């Protein structure tokens, strides 16, 4: 039985990952622990002691944790869709090597997106476990919030791949993180409700994948929270972004690699 080519590309990435998984798993645990300690527990004690007492009626740690889960997924998706793609196209030229085999540029693109999905899922599962350990969510709630978080990561990875495949120079990647990933991380409702911001920033937040991911993940983790829009709106938004990003990436990969 033949293995579909994108899965063989994914398998290759998994094999590469086997060499580095220890460091990667370590940081997958360390990063949420540090964030939840510093922001959730330490900053949270200040927030919770303030006059309003928590955010939207929730202890700050509880408010923060599902948002950070989605934000970690978004960052992982952006990471997997950018630097490794640049390496494959330009630095190591391993995509050129793969293209000399029966594999096509579409197989490569889909395989990498598949691998990004695996990586995002790993990060989210670890994050959810840490959330439970901190008492920020129930095991069931944490598990439920993994779904929208993974979708957020994939909805980020696909358009980032499309963008990266167009770049001649790596400075474009630094700009991507400086002007897109970091602002999105800070202003998409992870750390505070965007309703506190001027309207135009709120509207801006509504077109980011992370805002929708945070909104869905928070409602999934906490039974007392409901989504801003009906859940299907944000779900369709994230799926649409994934599909559009994938179609665009299939095109940019082909244009870049098949000349």
């Amino acid at each position, binding site marked *: 039985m*033949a*293995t579909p080519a994108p899965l063989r590309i994914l*398998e*290759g990435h998994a094999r590469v990952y086997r060499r580095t998984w220890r460091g990667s798993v370590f940081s997958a645990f360390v990063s949420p622990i540090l964030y939840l300690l510093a922001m959730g527990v330490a900053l949270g004690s200040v927030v919770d002691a303030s006059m309003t007492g928590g955010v939207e009626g929730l202890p700050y740690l509880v408010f923060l944790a599902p948002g950070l889960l989605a934000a970690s997924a978004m960052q992982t998706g952006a990471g997997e869709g950018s630097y490794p793609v640049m390496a494959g196209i330009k630095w190591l*030229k391993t995509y050129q*090597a793969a293209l*000399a*085999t029966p594999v096509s540029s579409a197989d490569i693109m889909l395989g990498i997106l598949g691998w990004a999905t695996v990586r995002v899922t790993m990060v989210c599962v670890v994050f959810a476990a840490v959330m439970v350990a901190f008492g920020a969510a129930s095991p069931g709630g944490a598990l439920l919030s993994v779904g929208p978080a993974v979708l957020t990561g994939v909805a980020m990875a696909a358009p980032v791949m499309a963008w990266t495949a167009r770049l001649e120079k790596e400075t474009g990647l630094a700009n991507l993180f400086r002007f897109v990933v970091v602002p999105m991380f800070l202003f998409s409702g992870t750390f505070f409700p965007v309703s506190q911001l001027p309207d135009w920033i709120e509207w801006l937040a509504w077109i980011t994948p992370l805002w929708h991911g945070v909104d869905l993940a928070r409602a999934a983790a906490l039974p007392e929270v409901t989504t801003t829009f009906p859940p299907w709106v944000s779900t369709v938004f994230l799926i649409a972004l994934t599909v559009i990003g994938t179609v665009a990436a299939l095109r940019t990969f082909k244009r870049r690699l098949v*000349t």
Partner: protein
Amino acid sequence: MPPLVEAHDLTKRFGDFTAVDGVEFTIETGEAFGFLGPNGAGKTSTMRMIGAVSPVTEGTLRVFGVDPAVEGASIRARLGVVPQEDTLDTELTLEENLYIYGRYFDLPAKVIRQRIDELLSFVQLAERRTDKVEPLSGGMKRRLTIARSLINQPELMILDEPTTGLDPQARHLVWDRLYRLKQQGATLIITTHYMDEAEQLCDRLVVMDKAKIVAEGSPRSLIEEYCTREVVELRFPPDNQDRALESLDGLAKRIEALPDRVLLYTDDGDASVTEVHERGLHPTATVTRRSTLEDVFLRLTGHTLVD
């Protein structure tokens, strides 16, 4: 048997730039076929079209009798490609590189493992099997790339400048392996801008210059057709060469003046050298040698292969 590769009026353009301009060639099973020419002659573009990774702009190309535009994947499944630039994953070990590449051909893990043993021994890298690729020398990386290209037991190998950038000893190691492949009956397509490489490895070759094929034949027949048997190279003090050229007039079948030396194409080198001295000329250095493909190239294009 139909030819393995057949090109008619094959053309490749990138925007306004014509990289390959209406070339014709046929490559038969079992031969080592060369594309000799300087950098930028269109060799790599031709290789990439044969390798079914670069679309043909105009003309027809058949590889294994089929059209790369239609059956690219099935053609690539039967090819072994050694690209000009190394495309190894330097963070992985030698065997991991071969394994991942083998999986791209959808070979079963067991088959790949067995071939890794054979191939790493063949390219004399068996003892480096579990080492990372990163610290390998240029010659070792080249040999590993050759091993990688053999993982699917290709019917046709495409080698794009297989020894460019290697030191002489590393080049000979690569040539030795390619020579063995040839003896085992492999069909090789080799591009090179080294005439010695073309002479050593190729049964038949085409000479490319400025996107076109300017001659075709075996190394020996090309030399016989376009050159004399021997060449005398004369060096004069820098300012004296022009004056010397006047005195040399008519001395050989053909006289070629390069910036640093004068070439006399003659059937009897020793006799020509004697006549040079009889005409009262005293070159600072005199070398008599056999004609090479480099001389053929100079004759055909008016410039040298390696600038």
